[in-house]
């Protein structure tokens, strides 16, 4: 009985935590952007404007859920669900602390990479099924961007895997006993950060939705709860990438005095704030600049990083 109920509770808790974080981020992002632009952001509804989340949710729930008659209906309905499912699946392998995790998968990192790749489908399907040229242009850009950045996203993590000698996420965290991997794998960290921004389609790499040129990109035709799902999916993606930066490069749950889960949440929160800071500070690059940067700068850098790491691991770390 205990073996059945406890994991179920854990799964429910992770689900609720991920969704609550995504909802809270709507408020946090607006407040932080306000802070960095010398204004306040939402501060009227409830204490510190926290009930703004509730107000926004009630509002979006009561919006008209419109499916365009010229769209490919089944695909149009499924596409926003794909975002949520792929992101939530990746949360299954995240070790929140030494013992708190849904599954301790021995290929956890590959699982995460696989599901973040599957996330491309939501953009592609949403843009294609909308039957709208702006949506199609947005999804074209989105797919090209996500595929290009995925190439070196995976490669940038191989250095970490080499140093830890495992794809298991808790083993990777345990391997950072002496030194966080951000120091030996600094270029890997930079590459993963940039790829993470591109994967979640966040500013400054939000070309798929570029509202100044493509209306809203691939989710132009979406309204009400379906649009909300894209929104929540984006915020959960930010949380997920922040969690993985923490796990892979900043020692996961490791830290003095406080319990592991607190350290994990603190570090993840810090990276979420950094994502928002990037949105506040950086302009969007041109599409060709984005592609040039991925293939001509980041890919060679990650390959060189991989080569150097491999050489050092071979030369100095004895096999055992």
């Amino acid at each position: 009985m205990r073996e059945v109920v406890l994991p179920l509770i854990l799964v429910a808790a992770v689900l609720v935590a991920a969704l609550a974080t995504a909802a809270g981020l709507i408020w946090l992002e607006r407040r932080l952007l306000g802070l960095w632009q010398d204004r306040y952001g939402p501060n009227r509804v409830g204490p510190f404007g926290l009930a703004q989340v509730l107000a926004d949710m009630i509002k979006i729930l009561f919006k008209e859920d419109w499916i365009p008659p010229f769209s490919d209906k089944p695909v149009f309905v499924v596409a926003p669900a794909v975002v949520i499912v792929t992101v939530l699946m990746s949360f299954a392998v995240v070790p929140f602390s030494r013992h708190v995790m849904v599954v301790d998968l021995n290929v956890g990192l590959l699982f995460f990479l696989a599901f973040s790749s599957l996330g491309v489908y939501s953009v592609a399907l949403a843009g294609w099924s909308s039957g709208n040229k702006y949506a199609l242009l947005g999804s074209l850009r989105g797919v090209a961007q996500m595929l290009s950045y995925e190439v070196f996203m995976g490669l940038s993590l191989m250095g970490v895997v080499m140093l830890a000698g495992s794809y298991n996420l808790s083993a990777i965290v345990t391997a950072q006993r002496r030194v966080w991997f951000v120091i030996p794998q600094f270029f890997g960290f930079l590459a993963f950060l940039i790829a993470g921004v591109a994967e979640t389609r966040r500013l400054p790499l939000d070309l798929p939705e570029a509202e100044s040129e493509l209306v809203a990109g691939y989710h132009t035709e979406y309204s009400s709860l379906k649009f909300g799902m894209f929104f929540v999916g984006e915020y959960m993606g930010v949380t997920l990438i922040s969690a993985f930066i923490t796990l892979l490069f900043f020692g996961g749950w490791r830290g003095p005095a406080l319990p592991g889960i607190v350290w994990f949440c603190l570090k993840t929160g810090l990276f979420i704030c950094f994502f928002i800071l990037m949105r506040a500070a950086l302009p969007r690059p041109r599409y060709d600049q984005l592609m040039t940067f991925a293939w001509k700068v980041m890919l060679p850098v990650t390959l060189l990083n991989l080569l150097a790491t491999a050489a050092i691991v071979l030369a100095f770390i004895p096999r055992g």
Partner: protein
Amino acid sequence: MWSIVGALWKVFLHAFRKRRTVLYPEVRPHLPARWRGRIILSRDPSGKERCVACYLCAAACPVDCIALQAAQEPSGRRYPEFFRINFSRCIFCGFCEEACPTYAIQLTPDFEMGEWKRHDLVYEKEDLLISGPGKYQEYDFYRVSGALIEGKAAGEGFDDEPPVDIRRLLP
């Protein structure tokens, strides 16, 4: 590359700057005395309506939001029978104030005129009329002008000269 890091750092430093927002209902903005806000009708120092119903404000109004009807007291004073401003049309340009020959219509530093019903934005004379002279405290049109009313014969006004007998030929 370094410009990106610099931009991130500079924007981050804004976290410690003073916020520019004026939290309006709690903090009142400073409005200068000549602010063009809610329109009022003023009275002269003796407490009578300044408006002489000359229609100049209605003629000057670019959006035609002023409506009035002239009437005359037995004493000779002119006054508006009704005076109506539709504030849902008014653009607060201040042309009526400039057109007014008697300083009767004035714009005030007040902008909080929100209403739930559009109909409530139509102000009648009793809504517009205030008890005092507003700007130009001492000004009294009938004391200054040559217009004749009961209680003021020709030449009795401020700065008036005695009337000229136009039949005499002497200078």
